């Protein structure tokens, strides 16, 4: 009796288990793909970063589509950067999010580290600017930058804080959403002054590409 049941059981295991093998045929999101099918770039090699990327198809040369963990904004994410797991933070009910992004490629001349803070409850854009001023202890003077996204504003303020070139960016809309971003660029040690400033301006282009691509996805209506 018992032996019979064990045999039946094993048979059923084979059938049911066999059926279960191929049931993962959803549209491919990078986090579900095998590592060898993914682009061979740092953003995809890092498991934590991979979870934010929506597709293994670049949206633009060297940039991949990124959705924030709170689902509140999207942007173009550079292939040679990654999201730092340890300092990542998401507020209750997706009301806020902190993302720290860094370059990983040791071969590069210029490096970017970014602190991105999103809040869904910015009562007044001046509070956002003031917050950036007190955080940086500088009189930041913001200038508006044109983007292709409507209904939201991008303002930036740049400064030098040796050895870093800093881009402070502030993105906001009338729906109480706000993103403050500090991007720090620095150079490899052994560069000449000229080489460093060339490297920095090339990294600044990457930053501007990211900043201009940021788009709020809107809050669920309350």
């Amino acid at each position, binding site marked *: 009796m018992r032996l019979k049941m064990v045999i039946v059981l094993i048979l059923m295991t084979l059938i*049911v288990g066999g059926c279960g093998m191929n049931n993962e045929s959803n549209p491919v999101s990078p986090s579900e793909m095998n590592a060898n099918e993914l682009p061979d770039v740092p953003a995809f090699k890092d498991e934590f970063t991979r979870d934010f990327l929506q597709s293994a198809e670049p949206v633009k040369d060297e940039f991949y589509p990124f959705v924030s963990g709170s689902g509140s904004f999207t942007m173009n994410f550079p292939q040679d950067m990654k999201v730092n797991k340890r300092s990542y933070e998401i*507020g209750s009910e997706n009301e806020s999010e902190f993302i720290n992004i860094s370059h990983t490629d040791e071969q590069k001349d210029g490096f970017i580290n970014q602190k991105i803070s999103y809040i869904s409850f910015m009562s007044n854009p001046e509070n956002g600017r003031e*917050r950036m001023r007190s*955080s940086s202890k500088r009189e930041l003077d913001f200038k508006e930058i044109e983007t292709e996204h409507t209904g939201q504003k991008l303002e930036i303020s740049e400064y030098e804080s040796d050895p870093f070139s800093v881009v402070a960016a502030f993105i906001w809309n009338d729906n109480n959403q706000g993103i403050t971003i500090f991007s720090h660029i620095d150079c490899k040690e052994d560069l000449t002054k000229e080489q460093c400033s060339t490297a920095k301006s090339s990294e600044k282009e990457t930053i501007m590409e990211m900043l201009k691509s940021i788009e709020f996805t809107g809050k669920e209506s309350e």
Partner: protein
Amino acid sequence: MIVLSMELLESPEIKARLIDIEYGDLKPQELENRLKQLYLEETGELFEGEIDIFHSSETKNETITSSNYDGTAIHISNDGHEEMYVISQGTQGGDDWLYNLKSMLAGQTAQQAEATNEFVMEAKQHLEVDEDTKTYGLSHSLGHNNNTVSYLAFGTFDEVFSINGAQPNYYELFKVDIPFYEAVRKEFAIREDMDVYDIEPQKLNDFAMQYYQDKSDNIHQIISKDDPLYAASAVRGFFTLGNVTMMDTNPDTPGLRELMEDIPDDVVKNFQDLAIDFAIGSEKGGTNGGVEALIGVDLKEFEGIDGFWSGAGFYFTHSSEIDTMIRSLEEKVPTLLDKLTPITENSEEIFDSLYEAEYITKEQKDVMIEEIAIIEQELHEINETIGRNVNIRDSGNPNAIFGGDIGAGLRIYFDHVKAIMESVDRIKESGILDNLSAITDSHSISELLSVMSEGKKGYLGTDMVYTATKGDGDPIKVNISAALRMYRETLPILEEKETKIRNFEQSIKEELDDSYKDEKRKVQDEIDRMESSPGSYRDLLAKHGHLPAFNKEMKSIKVHEVFYPLENNDFDEEIHELKKSVESGKLYIEKYRKAIEDLFDEEDNVSKLFDFSRRF
């Protein structure tokens, strides 16, 4: 400690007591009265200035509300001198403990520090305090971390003062204080922000101390050597900045910090790593989510399997879950073990010192050491089972894979996960968690106040106690705070009683005497009307005939009225008794005051305290 700057609330005792009272979330008027009484008790003077209060529950700013920040801003002005005190409340309830775990141990979030800054800005606006007014942060526990991080990163305060505070964390500041972040990266040549965690903690600590040196003079702290939070501050991340006055509240036991300092830094680092994983996991799915983040298994999915056969049935319906479980165990358990082993290797030392310091019993120590070893052992076995299973998977024989899966999955669950949960239960049963929570008494403000006595003055809880200066024999201690509260608060109560009695007298007059007259007048009016115009009452004669033959007329009406006087309306005696009870109440309170005054010499000014206590 000389703190000239906080002039209006100068002594550490008054600040400590105010911080404690703020925990009560009193209404503004009540808090104002309590503050005035504190001022009176501590200075012997009547506070005659203005006090305005703004509580964080009044704000609509979501940075503040969503962070669970809780605090009160008190604007005080006296004789043209203005100051603002902001009390940031310490740990309260479950949400804050999670925050503690994250921000304190993991150095992860500074949301409440940002909320502190926003709250102070809003309070200044709301209370119409101008920018130059000195603003001081007062706090206990977690509040100190909020206030100090806010002060260092955003310049929120002019000075901060705290009791048994949680220290600021340099990883938090690395995140929010941009100039500090830049300085750290420059000093330690950090390429990636993440590398900050690889800097030797002592070096980062020394650097942070140096970097914030000029602000150190504006940070004042009183800390109990036995405070568990102070002990926890020995771990990486925290740096103790400012003028610190240490107090020994329990001279018989060694400070907990001495125990903590013996634990090697890498053990602490491992613990932090586990705490971070747990914190991130629990943010999404509560404690279960935290456990899931650590071992990769969602325990909820396995509820309700309790024997091999139902387990086998479970496998048919949940084969993909078992598959996922094995995969994630395979990934998580080795790392978990790497982190856990150094902790268990030190468990003997950790629990032995807790036992020697008499925080836990010998039995509890033995239970802990034994059970922690069991948990580690079980994890090792899970690891081995998975290792064998992976070999089978790699063999490529499909029958063996499924047999292996079901065997491994159920064995892991029944033999090991259950054993771990049983261990946890035995730890709970030993009562050790309750013992450890007794340690938290030393975190309280009142325990610190109790050793801050001076001369005849002492503290009981946060009440002030005087030791009588007169009389022989054992010293008599009087709770002055309670006495003043009673003296002060009974007067309004007795006055209210008087008012009620007056209302009662008034009611008697209105309800009985006046309404009797009223009714009598109505009847008399009707009589007068009938007598003066009898013709209009002709239809009263209707029963004596019918139209058209009806020809009777009403010529005159005469009423013979008798009004009986109102009886039983004399309450004079009762009212007199009631009034007398108020008088005797007042007399009693005065006798009470006199009795206390008699215990003290005249120069103790106790009489003045009573007088002043009724003037606010």
